[in-house]
């Protein structure tokens, strides 16, 4: 069921690798492209300027019955603390990195154009714990609280149904 923030996802994963390698999974475009795309999709473009204020531009390419379909995502690195913490924004864009409006992406009206991904790394020696938080709504946004309170009641109802 939903967490306190109904619009964020938190996942922990411990990797059998050093924190240097774990960090490079995110910071090195070649590694990032190897795992990021959904199953069956390729990442033909992963431009990442991994420093605070640096831009990122990612292309996902999927094979569909109508031929290959490309989707582009852009964003900015907001926090870059090597081997510790990486924060970046993510939004659908065109191939030039111009962010698309929710109308253009057929997203619902209040879906944020930009979401935030936070990755925290914990050095466990030969292993590394990663904690990923994907925030769909800024937790300090005025709308977030009311939205959650209203939906809490609805979720209780669903659980009881």
């Amino acid at each position, binding site marked *: 069921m939903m967490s306190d923030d109904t619009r964020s996802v938190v996942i922990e994963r411990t990797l059998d690798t050093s924190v240097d390698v774990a960090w490079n999974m995110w910071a090195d475009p070649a590694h990032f492209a190897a*795992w990021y795309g959904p199953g069956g999709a390729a990442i033909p473009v992963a431009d990442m300027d991994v420093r605070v204020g640096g831009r990122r531009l990612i292309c996902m390419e999927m094979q569909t019955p109508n031929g290959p379909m490309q989707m582009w995502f852009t964003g900015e690195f907001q926090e870059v603390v090597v081997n510790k913490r990486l924060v970046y924004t993510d939004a659908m864009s065109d191939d030039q990195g111009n962010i698309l409006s929710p109308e253009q992406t057929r997203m619902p009206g209040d879906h944020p154009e930009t979401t935030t991904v936070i990755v925290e790394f914990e050095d466990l020696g030969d292993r590394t714990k990663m904690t990923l938080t994907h925030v769909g709504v800024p937790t300090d946004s005025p709308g977030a609280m009311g939205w959650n309170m*209203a939906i809490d009641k609805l979720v209780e109802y669903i659980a009881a149904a």
Partner: protein
Amino acid sequence: MIAAVLDDDRLSETFAALANPVRRAILARLVDGEANVNELAEPFAMSLPAISRHLKVLEQAGLVTRGRRAQFRPCVLNAERLEEVATWAEQYRRIWNDRFDRMADHLQNLQGDAPDQPNNEPTEESEP
């Protein structure tokens, strides 16, 4: 991202309907049981036609169904659609779990290539 984009329009419609405080309040009220338009309008400083318009949006999104009795037409919450909203976050969870699975596979391949250097990046382009 991908799942949300490839989602059918229905979930988008549900979210669009939920993207309004009055409509969410109406739904919260209906959790307590069915109600007619007059009852739903009571807590709001809004005209009946305005409330009716909100109800129409909720109805079109399938979040509310309305009785057939012309006089009262009580509104009832349709919990099924809300369950789809509850699974929204789960979709993102699935996407990231899949990604981490692939990351672990990728790591295993790398380490297979360079078993003696588990702490070093095996490819040159990996240097920060």
